[in-house]
């Protein structure tokens, strides 16, 4: 069985995909992943997910070229600057 390993580096942080372990069951996956992804104190927690449990999505319908939904070429920075000026402050959080 393949278990996908997700690793949380610090408390409160999101789990990110770290790799996988091949193990006969969850107990072996636990023992092995613990050593492989946690022995240097690099992980706060691990999620071990059987690959079969992952529902993958790869098909996308994008038939009408709806460019206006995308943010390409759309400067958030500039809009933020203008919004802040309007609010009467130069940097966020300073009143």
């Amino acid at each position, binding site marked *: 069985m393949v278990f996908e390993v997700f690793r949380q580096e610090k408390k409160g942080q999101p789990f990110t995909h770290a790799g996988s*372990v*091949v*193990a*006969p069951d969850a*107990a*072996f996956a*636990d*023992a*092995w992943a*613990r*050593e*492989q992804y946690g*022995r240097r104190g690099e992980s706060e927690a691990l999620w071990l997910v059987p690959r079969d449990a992952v529902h993958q999505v790869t098909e996308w319908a994008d038939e009408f070229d709806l460019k206006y939904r995308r943010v390409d070429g759309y400067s958030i920075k500039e809009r933020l600057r203008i919004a802040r000026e309007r609010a009467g402050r130069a940097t966020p959080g300073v009143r």
Partner: protein
Amino acid sequence: MNARAEQLLAFADDELIVGWRDSEWTGIAPTLEEDVAFSSIAQNEIGHARALYELAATELGTDADALAFDRQPDDYRCAPFVELHLMDWAHTIARRYLYEEADRVRLEALKAGDDAGLAGLAAKIDREETYHRLHAELWAGRLRDEPRFQEAVEELWPYAIGVVEEEQRPELARRVGLELVEANERGSHTPALAELWDEMTEVRRSAPGATW
């Protein structure tokens, strides 16, 4: 040498030599995952050895490296069990399992003992051993009905029982579900130790007194 130093050295030598032996599987264990885990556990055992040598070194006025590498093979106090050069996985995992069970009995006794320094270190070691036992027991559970594993356990059992003190042996036998037998006692060495020692101390002997 006082009894405390002797006790510390016996334990430390067991941990160093079993760690050394287990690390011989690095790169050639049955699966990649097991390779990483087994090597990591071997390193942990050597880490326990270092902590125990450090405690012994304060007793003996020396340092951990000197105790680990500057003694002659006959001065090591490890049990013959950890010296054996096991060439197949069934025996290796049987030793890992039996060693963990013996170590648990030894640690329980030390944790409950009067020696506060040693009891504290035993508790610290035991927190790591929890995961070693998890690993060893998984293997033992999976291979329980495998004749090669059963034979290996039976063959190694008289050696394993020699790791712990006489009064701890009934408890060890109960835990592993085997009969009490005559032990291969600590105090003499198998020829395998001299060979291991030769390799283990080679670098240290090549540059005496060097610091790294």
